Each structure stands twice: as C-alpha cells, then as structure tokens.
C-alpha cells in the first residue's frame, strides 16, 4: 500500500458540494434565469431528478473495480484504445479547471479590483490550487470539510437575512417561457449538477476508511447541494423579481448586497461571496489532483518525470486562457455556459460508455 492515502466517506462526499456549487454560482445561474425566467425553480427540480439517474451511473462506475483508479479502470476497459480515452479525459478536465477558475477570477476582477487584469487573479488562483493539490487528497479533504461547513453556515445566515426581503408576487407568473426552454435548462442543470461528481474518482473506493457508508453520505451531500441551489434561486427571484435578476451577471452575488444587519452594518455581500470562493478553490484543487493522477498514470511517469509534467501542466493551464479569453466575447456572454456543458456532457457520456463496457466485460 505504498503512497496510498486513506480518507473517510464524509470528507469525500462533502467535496461534491464544492464541485457542483462552484460552477452553479458563477456560470450557470445567470444563464438559467435568462432562459427559464421564473420557471428556473421548476427547471432545478426537474434537473435534479434527471441528475439522480446520472449520479447513480457515476456511483456504479466508482464501485466498479474498487482497487483501481479511474485511469486504471479506463486502461482495463478500453485496452489498447485507453491512451486516446485517457488523453480525451485529461483535455476535458483541463478545460473544466480553466472554466471554473477563470469565472472566479473574472468575477473578482469585475467586482473588486476593476483595474486589475482577470489573468492576474487567474494566476493567483492557479498558484493556490496548485499548492493545495500538491498537498494530496487527505489534506484537501480536511480543508474541504471545514470550508464546506463554513460555506453552509454563511449560506444559512445569508438566506435568513434575505427572507424578509422576499416578495411572493415575484414568483408569478411562474411560466412565461416555452417548454423547450424549461427542458433545455433542466438538462443543462442536470449535467452541471452530476458531471462534476465524476471527480470523486480522485481516490479509489478501497482507500475510503468506511467505504460501505459512502453512497449514503454521497446522497446526503447531493440533497444539501440541491437545496442550496434551489433556495439560492428562490431567494434571488423572490427579492429581485425575474426582470431585475436578469440584469446581473452574478445575480446570486448581487442579491447578497441587500443584506443589512441592524440597518447600519452593510457590505455583508463580501462575506457571503466567500462561499463561492471557497467552493471554487476547493473544486479547482480537486480537479487539479485528478489531472495530476491522470497524467501520471496515463504516461506511467516516474517521480522526476512527474514533476516536469506538473510544470508543463501549470504552463498549459496558464497559456490556454490567454488564448481562449483574448477577447471578452466568450467571457461575458452566455456562450461561457455552453462550453463547460459540452465538456461535462462528454465526461458523462464517457462514464456511461465505460459503465456499459464494464458490464459487457463482466
């Protein structure tokens, strides 16, 4: 059991909260509100139900060959085609990392230090997540657990503070868009909700101290995440109304500006937004660990080669956004939502295909 890390099921399942929430807060909300308006509430509920089926498949794949890592499973299932599959998985993961971290950096740049480049924030996030990822899964799971509890506490206090601002009339009329839009946002939500949980594969199931409890904790975390998503949208629409919510790039952040304590303590949105920062940093770190492991196992790298590969990865993660986000059209339009959607969709198809092939192989 050389270099084998042991973590518990609660810690691993709590990381799924960060993984899902990071893309929901930054990338998905404004898109969903724009497409489905008030019916976003319905889309989230439908999307969650669909995501349960996908999560079940992801969990089944996690339980398959519990002594093998994700890449080893791919190698076993795809045989000589596995290098192609592995590389496709690595490329998808690289872009997932970039889209999640860059969204946070563009938010920090637009809301806090408007004259500072987004790329500078991105570099800082890259360095922080790189540092955390180097500390291995065990450390990350501990950081993630603490951050998750703090984030949930922040969410609950923010939600309670905003309850008095809610106007029930703002939820009416509930359906103002076509069924097509509701269906589209439900599917997009289900993909965004389930795909990031693929990264629980950063650890082999055998390395969980209490692996028999994992599924239970996974679904509990899943429900908590769903409730956070649902209530954050309900509160945003209830406070702002759909037309006003649709004006903002980051509606969940803008609604936090309404929080005031004792009518004189304001600017509490800056505490509230820590929630998204926590989620993004943790999930980016998890994705980075997954990348480290995948590259190492795909190319069977030795210790020294592994260090060089990490450096190359760091440079790659830095260069791609410089090319991809050279002009602002991608960052500031809803196209930003579609690219991670297609990447997540690809990852889900890959896991579903792998599950089917693993069943056939059995």
């Amino acid at each position, binding site marked *: 059991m050389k270099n084998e890390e042991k973590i518990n099921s609660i810690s691993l399942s709590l990381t799924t909260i960060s993984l899902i929430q990071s893309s929901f807060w930054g990338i998905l909300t404004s898109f969903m509100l724009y497409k489905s308006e008030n019916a976003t509430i319905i889309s989230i509920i439908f999307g969650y139900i669909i995501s349960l089926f996908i999560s079940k498949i992801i969990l089944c794949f996690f339980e398959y060959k519990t002594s093998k890592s994700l890449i080893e499973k791919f190698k076993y299932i795809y045989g000589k085609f596995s290098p192609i599959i592995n590389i496709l998985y690595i490329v998808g993961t690289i872009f997932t990392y970039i889209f999640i971290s860059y969204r946070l950096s563009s938010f920090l740049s637009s*809301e806090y230090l*408007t004259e500072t480049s987004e790329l500078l924030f991105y570099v*800082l996030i890259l360095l*922080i997540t*790189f540092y955390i990822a180097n500390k291995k899964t065990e450390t990350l799971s501990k950081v993630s657990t603490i951050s998750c509890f703090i984030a949930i506490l922040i969410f609950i206090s923010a939600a309670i503070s905003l309850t008095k601002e809610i106007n029930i009339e703002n939820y*009416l009329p509930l359906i103002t868009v076509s069924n097509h839009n509701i269906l589209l946002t439900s599917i997009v939500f289900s993909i965004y909700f389930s795909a990031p949980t693929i990264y629980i594969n950063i650890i082999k199931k055998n390395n969980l101290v209490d692996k028999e409890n994992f599924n239970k904790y996974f679904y509990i975390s899943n429900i908590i995440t769903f409730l956070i998503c649902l209530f954050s949208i309900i509160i945003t629409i209830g406070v702002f109304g759909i037309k006003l919510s649709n004006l903002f790039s980051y509606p969940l952040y803008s609604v936090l*500006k309404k929080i005031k304590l004792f009518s004189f303590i304001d600017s509490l949105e800056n505490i509230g937004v820590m929630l998204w920062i926590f989620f993004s940093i943790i999930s980016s770190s998890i994705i980075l660990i997954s990348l480290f492991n995948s590259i190492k196992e795909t190319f069977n790298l030795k210790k020294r080669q592994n260090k060089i590969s990490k450096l190359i990865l760091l440079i790659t993660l830095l260069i791609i956004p410089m090319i991809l986000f050279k002009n602002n059209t991608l960052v500031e339009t809803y196209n930003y939502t579609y690219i991670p959607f297609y990447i997540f969709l690809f990852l889900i198809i890959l896991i579903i295909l792998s599950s089917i092939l693993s069943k056939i192989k059995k």
Partner: protein
Amino acid sequence: MKKILIILITILLTGCKNYTEINDLGVVTGIAIDYKDEQYKITSQLIINDTKTEIKVYETESKSIEEGIAQISKLSNKEIFLSKLKLLLITENIIKEKVNIYDFFLRDAKSNMDFYIYLVDENNIKDILSINNEQNGSALYIQQMMTFNERNLSSSTKLDFMNYVYKSLEKGINIVYPTISIEEESIKLSNLSSFNYNNNKLDFNENESIFFNMITNKTDRTIFSIPCEDKEFTLELQDIKTKYKWDNNIFNINMSLTGKIKNYNCRYNINDNKTEKILTNITNIFIENNMNNLINLMKKNNNDFLGIGNYIYKHDKNYFNFDKDIWDNHINELNINSKSNANIISIGEIRK
C-alpha cells in the same frame, strides 16, 4: 513552491497599485441628473477633505453620465468616489425623454446601489444641493427629513434605487416619485408625483399621497382628522395592511387597520357603547371615500400608479396583452372595489 507563493502574494497583493490618498478623493453624497438637447447636466455634491472638510457643488454638461462624472473629477481635482452616494435627484426631462439612468449605476461595480431617488424641478437643483453645505450637506438632511416624515405623517415615501429599477422593468406599473422643492430658502419634502405612459404628470395632494402609501403598504401608520357631523376627531392609524384580490375580472382592495383616538371633539358620548361602532363606521366611510378618490384619480389620468396591471399580469397573464397594448389606456375600464376594515382600539388616557 511555498516561498514562490509568498513572494508573489507580497508583490501582487499588498495593494500599492492604484492607491489613492483620502485627501485626493471627492466623496459624492448627492448627484442630480438633468437631460436637455441630448446633453446630460450633472450636478454633484462632493465632500472634500483638504485642510478642512468642505462640501462643494459642481456642475457639468456632457454626452453621457460617465463623461459628466469624469469632468467633475477634473473640475474638483479629485478622484470621484461613488460608493457613499445617498441621493439621486432627477428632473421631469429625464422621465419624459425616457432616459435610462440606471444603466450607469448598475454597470459601475463601485456604485453601492443603496441610495434614494427624488424628483426635482430643474431650476432648483443647485439650490437643493447647496443649501445645507455649512452643515452636513443636503443629502444627509433629506435622508433625515424622509425618516421623520415616514415615522409620522407618511405624506411622502422613499424610492430606493433598486426599487426604481425594479418598477422600470415590470409591466403594468408606473413609478411614483417623492419630490423635493425649495420653500422660504429651505428644503421641503413635497407630495408625490407620477407620470403615465404618455408622460402626463400627475401631482398628488397630501391626502392622496398618504392614501397612496397606505394602499401600496408603504406605510403602516399615519394620522387623520376625520369629520363627525360638524366637528372632527383625530385618529392615529396603525398596523395598516392592504390586500389585493383579482376575482372574476373585478379588482378588490381590502384595507385593514387599527386606530387610536388622539383628539376628540364629536358630539357623541365617548363612554357610550354605541359610539365606538359609530366612530368605526365613520372611519371606514372616510377611508373608503379616500380610496375611491385615489382610484378615480388613477382612472381619470390613465395612470396605473398603484400597479394594479402588474398584479393582474402576475395572477392572470392572459387577461391583457401588456407587450402589444398600452395598459394605462385601459385602466379606466377596470372594475375596482375598495373596502376598509378599521378597528378603534384606544380612546387615550381620558374619558371625554
């Protein structure tokens, strides 16, 4: 890795870049925007900290609000700081020309969006922003004046920026503006005003302003002198709550409230059991009459300032095509019922 990270953070996050001394900041507390001949006239009230704290007013004209603010920065030789903005004054021209002023404040991340909007006469702008400059400045003075008004008479009401944007975007509702004027060289909080779709201005009187606040749940307390035969009694109204209902194409407004007698001159014996019933009845008739007056005012001026159209859209969106037709032109066809349910709970400390 750790060392590199520490060095980078020390260099990049110590905040030396774009550092501004507090003495170089011009803190904007009040701003007025007028629009004429495709030019924005911006008047700003700035708190300036040089050798001593001073309040100064600057005026500029420009093609956009952003340009106007930049010019004020140039005039005052200060970097403009908008986060402490408390007051935004707009003129009739802004409303009639349908100028989108919220775009600038929403788009600017440095604006905290926590300020109030008032309608003013374009000729009074400079006076309003200059009048209290020896003390704390008119922005804070107006804010205080509104707080006292809301606590007592409720003849005016706050219009916060986010509510202004909200109503600008919603269907079937016209914005009602609090207004400020100058009288005898001092600032006065006047009654409310509203504009319909065709930009016709409607000025409320004091009674109408108070009843608008009551019907739209913007106040839960006020005072009225209610006639009883040839005399009067003064009633302090509390816990005012209005509910709307859209039922069988009839719009119902139901107001419930409690009252405390503050002054009593009527002929009825206040110790008589029947008197309470009579006074309650008189109060209900008084309130219903005033509610109906306001509804008639709305219908006569084709101005849905109560937001009845908005309520109907939310509860029965197929009743009217808000996207293709002008709701204000149809408000007079609407069947509206009003009802008051008053409850007098106290006659005060004396039995006379």
